[in-house]
């Protein structure tokens, strides 16, 4: 089996063990969250040795060239010397405000202490001083100056709970990234677009919709937000006004639990969408939020006619142990 050199120690990899798991097993406090090659939290840098291509899938070319890889999906065939992601991959930032958008949704605004290029809809990995790392999608546009995230409070959540109760304006954090392909690519301005988010899956979509409008997108833009209960539609009034101001934007709110739907539609969001849009040939689609729903909707929209290269999806995978 291959061995990993990290710092001044050697770590033997067990059969089918990832670099991340080997380090964690030995008690190294290596950053991680999803353990599925998706969130970017576990990024490390190879100093010497061959990194399997699979461990670099989805990383920017410039990062690949510098040897960055995702430790949770890295199963090297031969010895590898690795180092923590360098400071140049990490940007210091300060929380500027924290407010409640709903009972369990926080809006987190951050100012970066160094230039940080991103597209609305990509995600950043937020790192606390204790090295805990979690990924969040960007709801703001670069020219807005601050980075806006929508964070759902999870019971006993180590990051979301900390943000809700302990962090405040002025708290320092750092950011890794950005990562992800889920953003508006200018061009094909007349193409119809459908965006579907559940819960805080709305965050990237809110950024993408405004990015598309700002880029002069002319085709119809169908934005769907799904929540379990009516009070989870945390940007309802704001999005209703945004849609009223743009002829090509339509906003549909849907609530799973019928009794309190109010002015939203009730029922499963996937059925609602496929009833209204049985044929999506030629569309562009964006899907974010709950992993099971993102996975199944992705398949359903594909079968309704969207080309797979026109589907952009980010499943909000939870942390894994």
């Amino acid at each position: 089996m291959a061995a990993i050199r990290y710092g001044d120690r050697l770590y033997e990899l067990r059969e089918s063990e990832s670099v991340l798991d080997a380090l964690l097993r030995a008690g190294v406090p290596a950053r991680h969250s999803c353990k599925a090659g998706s969130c970017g939290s576990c990024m490390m840098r190879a100093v010497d040795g061959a990194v399997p291509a699979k461990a670099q899938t989805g990383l920017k070319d410039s990062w690949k060239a510098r040897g960055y890889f995702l430790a949770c999906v890295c199963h090297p065939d031969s010895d590898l010397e690795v180092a923590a992601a360098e400071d140049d991959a990490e940007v210091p930032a300060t929380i500027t405000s924290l407010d409640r958008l709903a009972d369990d949704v926080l809006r987190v605004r951050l100012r970066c202490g160094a230039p940080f290029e991103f597209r609305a809809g990509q995600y950043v990995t937020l790192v606390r001083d204790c090295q805990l790392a979690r990924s969040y999608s960007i709801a703001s546009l670069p020219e807005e100056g601050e980075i806006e995230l929508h964070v759902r409070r999870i019971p006993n959540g180590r990051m979301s709970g900390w943000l809700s109760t302990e962090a405040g304006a002025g708290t320092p954090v750092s950011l890794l990234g950005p990562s992800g392909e889920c953003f508006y690519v200018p061009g094909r301005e007349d193409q119809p677009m459908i965006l579907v988010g559940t819960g805080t899956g709305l965050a990237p979509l809110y950024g993408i919709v405004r990015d598309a409008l700002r880029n002069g997108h002319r085709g119809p833009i169908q934005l769907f937000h799904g929540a379990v209960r009516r009070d989870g539609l945390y940007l309802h009034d704001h999005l209703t006004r945004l849609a009223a101001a743009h002829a090509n934007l339509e906003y549909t709110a849907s609530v799973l639990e019928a009794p309190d739907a109010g002015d939203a539609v009730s029922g499963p969001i996937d059925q609602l969408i496929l009833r209204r849009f049985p044929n999506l040939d030629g569309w562009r689609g964006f899907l974010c939020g709950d992993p099971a729903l993102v996975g199944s909707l992705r398949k359903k929209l594909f079968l309704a006619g969207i080309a797979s290269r026109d589907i952009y999806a980010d499943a909000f995978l939870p942390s894994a142990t």
Partner: protein
Amino acid sequence: MHLMNSSSLFEQLGGADAVEAAVDRFYRKVLTDDRVSRFFDGVDMDRQRAKQKAFLTMAFGGPHNYTGKDMRDGHAHLLKMGLDDSHVDAIIELLGSTLREMGAGEDLIGQVAAIAESTRNDVLGR
């Protein structure tokens, strides 16, 4: 299957571009065909699509590194789900109709079917 003069078939079909053009079409057929869709129920579409491309590249006579043993191992879990000759027939049929819709001639379609056919026993673990 390596015995066939298959590189020219791959070129005649249009190579990697043809695979790219065929994959969505073929994958949609597979997912909506009641005979075989249940074998493809996994939620992870990216992974499934990558495997469809591998399948099409192989069937189109393109370059690949799969051995008979890989085909056995890769489909062993499907045998437990009841995979049999009728499913191989269905996949070969869907492959043919995909190519027909893309305008391929019957001669090339026959050659593709023959490549798929040559893997039947491995796929079915015989």
